[in-house]
Structure formats: C-alpha cells, structure tokens
C-alpha cells in the first residue's frame, strides 16, 4: 500500500538478542581458565550475528572444554570423549537450518577422536570446530596429551613427556578437502573473535585451533611465546584476519598471507619457532558433504510409497491371470 513493500515493515515480534540471552549456567571453569575467553568470544559472535538460540547447536566431547554447551543458552549436546564430530555431522546432515558449533579439547580431538578429526576435514560439512588446546588433559588431572611439549612433567610422564608433540596444523593442512584452517590464542580476544567470525561465515568445515592456558596444569606452557610477542607471526589479508592497529603495536611480527596459498600455509604451520596466528588456509570452492548429499526428494509418505512399489515390483511375483 502506498508503494511500501510489506517486506520493509518492522517486525515487532522480532527480538534483539543481548549477550545475556546466550548465557546459560555460570561457568564452573577455574579462575583464569582460557575457556572463559572462548565462551565470551562465541557469545559475542552470536549477538553480533543475531542468531536465534533455537537455531544453534553446540556439540562437545568430554573434558573441561566440553562443558561449553552447558554455558550456552542454545541447544547443546555434551557427548562422549572424542565423538563430538560425528555427532555434529549427524545433526547437520538433514538440518541445514541449524548453525552447528563443535567444541573439543586437544585430547578429545587429536587423540581419542583423531580418526573423526581427519574425516571431518574430508567431509567438509558446514560447521565451526574449535579445539581448546591447553597441551594437557585437565579434567582427568594432568596427563600428557598429543600436544604436550616434550619434557613437560605430567602424572603419566613424571620424568617429562618423552615424545615430540603432534603438530595439528600440519596434520590438518595435509587432509584432502580441507577448506578452513586457523590458529589463534585465547589471550588476544580481538583476534580470537575475528577468526571465529570468519569461520562462522565460511561455507564448509572451519577448523580453529585455539591455544588456551590451563591455570592449574599448564600455566607456563605458553610463556615462551607470551614473553616474546615476536614469536607470534600474525597473518593478515583482505580475505583473512583483520588486525586492529592497537594490537600491531604489541605484536610487530605481522605478515600478509593470502589464505588461498596452501603451500605457504603449510610452511607457516611447520615453523615451530614462530607460531602463525590467523587464517592459514581458506577455500570456499571445496564442496560440502551436506550439499553433496542433499536429498533430491522429500521423505514423505507418498514418495516413500512410490519408491516402495517400485521395489516390490522389482522383487514381485504376480498371481497368474493378473
């Protein structure tokens, strides 16, 4: 009427979500735990994107980090140790309308769930996976994890971890169909937020490894890179992470990296002296499994009946004179 498109009318039912709307239980993580920062960054993302809580599912495994869904006022699935990814894939396969997030620890994803991690990359389903990597098993009280530095004393390695740690970035970048790989630290919240946001907007499986301090069991494990800011190599690009000027004042080792360059990404990932921070790799052209396997027909009684009749005909015997 009067040339006003009805689409432009204000929808009064629509709610503007505040940070509080995404908060469920009060976190029971230890004071100083890096998981709190990841929670805040994630809630900020949902608020900024104004995502309906009921359209969001957080899936987790087992461990400190996996309590994450309990603190989000959305749908949540706190599952089994290592199994978060295949559960999340099942959630997503027939629910393109749901935003799926997966939160795992380093033991969860890189050890007991390692097979699922590799294959999740290959399926490339549209979801965001965050690994809270504190280099240790926390909830079970300090056992060496796949990313524990060699020499670190734990309850299972009282004379120091005996193996070289696994490099999850190198591993991830080696899997075919990989489409988004980022590395961040929880103690630079602006970068953490920016990367989670880019991951959310990426169509495909967004893998974010987040270095996260455990105040109880690995409070000093990241000291070398915290004390020497230049050991963090901040990767920036128009298609990658955006770095505020204030941060550049502290972290001076900034490089422009085009996330479409997988060879360069692998080179940065392999460097153990300087830790890459930002989006290492991104390729939107990789097909997603949820798209590839999208149903071509609805699963309605009439369609089912039609398919069944065809099958019954194929295997059927008719009465004579029929």
């Amino acid at each position, binding site marked *: 009427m009067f040339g006003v498109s009805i689409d432009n009318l204000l929808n009064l039912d629509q709610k503007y979500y505040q940070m509080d709307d995404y908060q*469920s*239980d009060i976190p029971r993580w230890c004071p100083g735990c890096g998981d709190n920062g990841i929670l805040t960054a994630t809630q900020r993302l949902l608020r900024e994107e104004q995502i*309906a*809580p*009921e*359209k969001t*599912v957080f*899936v987790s495994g087992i461990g400190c980090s996996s*309590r994450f869904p*309990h603190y989000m*006022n*959305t*749908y*949540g*699935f*706190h*599952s*089994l140790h290592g*199994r978060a*990814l*295949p*559960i*999340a*894939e*099942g*959630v*997503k*396969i*027939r*629910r393109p*309308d*749901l935003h799926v997030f997966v939160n795992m620890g380093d033991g969860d994803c890189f050890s007991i769930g390692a*097979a*699922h991690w*590799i*294959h999740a990359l290959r399926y490339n389903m549209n979801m965001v996976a965050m690994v809270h990597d504190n280099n240790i098993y926390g909830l079970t009280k300090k056992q060496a994890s796949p990313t524990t530095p060699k020499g670190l004393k734990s309850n299972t390695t009282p004379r120091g971890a005996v193996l070289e740690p696994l490099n999850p970035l190198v591993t991830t970048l080696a899997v075919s169909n990989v489409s988004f790989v980022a590395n961040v630290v929880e103690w630079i919240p602006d970068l953490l937020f920016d990367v989670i946001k880019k991951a959310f907007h990426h169509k495909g499986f967004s893998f974010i490894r987040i270095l996260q301090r455990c105040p109880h069991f690995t409070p000093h494990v990241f000291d070398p890179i915290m004390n020497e800011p230049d050991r963090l190599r901040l990767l920036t690009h128009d298609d990658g992470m955006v770095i505020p000027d204030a941060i550049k004042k502290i972290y001076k080792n900034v490089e422009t990296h085009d996330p479409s360059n997988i060879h360069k990404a692998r080179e940065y990932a392999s460097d153990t002296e300087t830790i890459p921070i930002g989006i290492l790799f991104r390729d939107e052209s990789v097909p997603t499994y949820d798209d590839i*396997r999208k*149903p*071509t*027909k609805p*699963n*309605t*009684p009439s*369609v*089912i*009946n*039609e*398919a*069944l*009749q*065809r*099958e*019954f005909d194929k*295997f*059927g*015997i*008719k*009465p*004579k004179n*029929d």
Partner: protein
Amino acid sequence: MHTTETPQSKTAPTGQNAKPTVIDEHIIEIVSDSGEGAQTAGQAFGTISARMGNGIWTVEIIPAEIEPPPRTSSGASGIRIRLGSNQITNMGNEADIIVAFNEQALLGREETGNLKKGATIILENRWKDHTNNVIREQYAEVMEHLLAEGYNVIEIPMEEETLKIVKNPRRGKNMFVLGMLSYIYSRDMELAREQIRFAFRKKGEKVIAPNLQLLEAGYNWAKNNLDFQYEITSPPISKPMVVTNGNVAIGMGIMASGMEVCAMYPITPATSASHYLSEVFENAGGMVHQAEDELAACAFAIGASYAGKCAVTITSGPGMALKTELLGLASMAEIPLVLVDVQRGGPSTGLPTKVEQGDLLSAMFNSPGDNPKVVLAPSTIEDCFYSMITARKIAETFRIPVLVLSDANLATGQQPYPRPEFKEEWVAPPYDQNPVPEGTIPYDWDEKTGLSKRIIPGQPGGLFRVTGLAHTRDGHVAYGAGVNQEGCDKRSLKIATFQKTLKTPRVYGPEEGDLLLVGWGSTRGAIEEAVDKARKEGLTVSSLHLKFLMPMASGIGEILKKFKKVITVEINFSDNPEREMITEENRRYSNLAWLLRARYLVDVDSFSNVHGQPLKPSAILEMTRRELKKLN
C-alpha cells in the same frame, strides 16, 4: 549279499523324456570355486521357482575370502535351494541333488554331511582327463570315494558345452547349469528367460544374449542326455508376493518406516543391506552415510536422530561391540536409535560369513552401568521387513535404542512372502518444530511410565543440553545421590511400560506336555518343522518362539512351567554337560537359556552349537527323541 559289479558313474545317460516324477520337495546345491557364479544361478533358480508358486528357501555358502585358492574344499562357494509344494521355512536337512564345478568343492559339502545318502551328483568332467596329473589323481580319488559311498554320480562336460557359446567358461557355466536345472525341475522357460534379463539388466544386451543361449544349451543338453526329470507342483499363487533375502527386506523395511538416515561401516554379513539401501534409499528421500568407523556410524545416527527423525545404523557383532559406548549414550540421553545387528560367528572376528546367534546377551547388557534398550529378533524374511517399522516406532515412542538381531541365515536366505500393502502409519511423522510451551523441561519423566516428550533442536523455547553424564530432569549435570537413582529408575520404567504392550507369544503345538523347545530369531522354521515331525511320531513336544527378548512378554513363565522339560534351541555356544570338568555349578548355558533361567527360575537346558551353519530340523528332531526317551 555280494555283488561282482563295480560301481560306475554315468557319463551320458540317454535322454528318455519320460513323464517327470512328481515330488513334494527337494534340496539342491550348486558349488563352485569363488567367482564362478554359483550363487547367481542358484538365486535365479530360486526366484523362478518362487514365481511358479513353489515354497523356497535359499542359503548361500560363502567362503570368507574374495577369491580363495581354487579347487579346495574350504574355499567352496555356493548355494543351497530348498524347493517345495508348500511354504518352506528353513534350509532343511541333506541335499538331494548337488551340481559341482569341481570335485574338491563337492568334497567339502560331502565331508560335512550335507548330502543325502545316494544323492545325485552332477559333476563337471573336465578334471577327469586334465593335463595336470595331480588334478587327474585328485579327481580319480574323489570319484572312487563317491562311488563307494553309493552316490549317483553323473559326469557332465559343462565346460566343453559352455565354450561352444562363450570364451570364458568362468562367466557362463553357471547359466548352463541354470538351464540344466530348469529342465530337471520342469521350470517355466519363459520365466527363466525373464529372470536372466532381469539379473543382467544393468549389463546390457551384449551380456544378456549369450546368457540366454547358455540357458537354452543347458536345458537342451539335459533334455537330450538325462533320464530323469522332476516336477514340484504348487497351488497357483492367489495373491501378489515378493521374493527377497533378509537384508533386502531390512532395507525395504527401513524405507517403509520413514527413517531417512542410515549410517554404517562395512562389515560382513550386514553390508549387503546397506548396499541395497545405497542403491534405492534416495528414491524415498533417504541417505546412506558410510562413516569412517563403527563408532562414527553410530554417533552420526545419534546426531541425526537428536535433530530430526529416528536414524538407523547397521552392523554385525564386532561392530556392535565398538558401538557400545554410543548405545549407552543414546540410552542415557534418551535419543531414539535403531541398530540392526546381522549376527555372524564369534567371538572376536570369528566366522565372518557364517551364521550364529551369539550376540543376544551382549545386545542386552553391552554398556557400562544400567542402560535399558529394547531387543527384538525377526524370525522370517517377512519379519525382517516389518521389524524395522516396529523398531522405529518403539524407538521414537520410548526415546530408546532398539536393537534388531538378524543373522547370516536370514541375511542371504530368500523366501517369498505376501507383497506388503503400504500404510501411511508406518512412516515417521514430520518432527515437531513448534514453539515449546513455557515451563516444558526436556526430561519431564512421567511418574508412572517414565516417558517424557522429546524436544528437537529448532523448537523455540525448548533450549536444553543433552549430556551422557548423570542429569536432572532439566538436563543439568548433577552428581547428587538422588539424581542418578531417579534417572536410572525412570529410564528403566520405560521398559516396563513397553512390556505391558506385548502379547504373550503363542505356543506352537499343545500348551502343555513333556518337552518345550524355545527359540528366537532365524531358527523358527527349523524348530517348528522338527516339532511337526516329532508330533507325527507321537512325541509330546511343542515350541515357543520369542520375538521380543528385552523385555519379554508377560505369560512366558507360566508357559514354561507347563512342561516337564524346557530346552532352548540356539546357534550359540554352551558347555557340553557331559564333559568331565563341567558341573551344574560351572556350566555355561546358551544365551537364551541364561535369560530364561534367571528370569523365570525354571531349570532350562540348552541345545546349541557354533558350527557356523543353520540348524537342521533333523538334528533338532534327533535331540527331541533323545530327550523324550530320557524323560519317559
């Protein structure tokens, strides 16, 4: 009595084309090296016979390897087809006719007691004059043995005749055999031709034409050279039927149930159900996901179920062992799930291609802590179809994992059954996406039934967290003393509530007497056939077949108590009580016997073995006679 005549094989009897002998039923086997197509020929023969109105049951004889060494008795690949005028419910006893592509494959069947005394053996003769003298000697040795045992051996130039039509006899001899059998059993050749066109429909006319020629060649050769022919008459078919094996029936049942996600990982003998579904499920809006491992397959199904319609995962025993932690999660978090276990021989990787019913106890008790689930077992091919519809309904109504135990016998056995008539109520309704009324909580357990309504992601106002940890009614992790007690109590109550809906199973035969045989799953046909025969001999034996194993219907205890002796008949392990070390205090019973003893306090005995073969009615009959002699 003495005879000077040495036994002789018949090389080429002259065809007489007398009137066929009318018989009630016959068991036919075709055995070959792997890859020679015995199963294709046998399945086609079974289908043609079913289309003519015969009762049939087919069982595949499968080696564990893809192509085991040729000409070995352990590597034999083949099929058994039992045909009858009436319905056939099991694989029967010993074979009447066996067609063998080489004498070693044949020997494997003969040595394991699968041939009737005096059975007709139709044997490929190319080995007789083979250039390799080791083969010649082996052939001669076996032949001597067969003749001494009194078999009716007919040597036939199958390869020679096949080579007249195709270059590679490995890809053609089977259709020549199908032609021969079509003559021997007076099959309708038009149906046989139709069947060949159907079997090779994907390969095109180039493959269909020579196979049709081979069929005719086999038929004519038999007509011109054999002096016997049979006819198994049947009443004409009065209603539409379908002929499938159990795994195809499971696939069709999954489609019919309205489930839309099937997640699996390859494992014998379950995979053919997923193969079938992979081909056709998308036509019904469904999908098969091949996961990276068994755990992921189960997790994927649970994720899909949690966010939508109930999903299914298909596996066999070793796969179910891997899925146990996820079954525990589904039980704890009350997420509907259907798991199909096509059982094979165990323990460990055991006998991948052979039949066993060894997973009953592990299906019921496989997770740590108390994890109630429903366990049911189809007993016929038709039952495989309907069980999937039932399983989906139970899973969704009770928010519980439902385990369907099939086995290798049902998986590859073919049987005709009435064409199902589609009902809309089979199909899962669309999942609820309406706003959840304020105050609704995710585990709002009903005090009496333990039931609560499932909230599905996407529903406004329903936000909650699922966890495998002990949780309160609102889904919060809680370790308080009363919380876990209440959760376990309510989840267990659902089993009792479901049990109230079950009908008492009917006794096959009189409801009281001397001996009751109790079975479950695929052994039904063999047990009931044995009971029929025993009763004809005047023995007072009945049988009871259980479809629901967890929970069991009410009234079973009363039935057991009306018989002097109760024996379970199962294909799984139990101690032989006659061994020196075995006493009543240490004897380990077969799966169902343990359960019946514990539940009903009845002194139930076990008759079971783990030979990896379907039970023969004759073995059950013999045991029945023996046990009744002990009683009276």
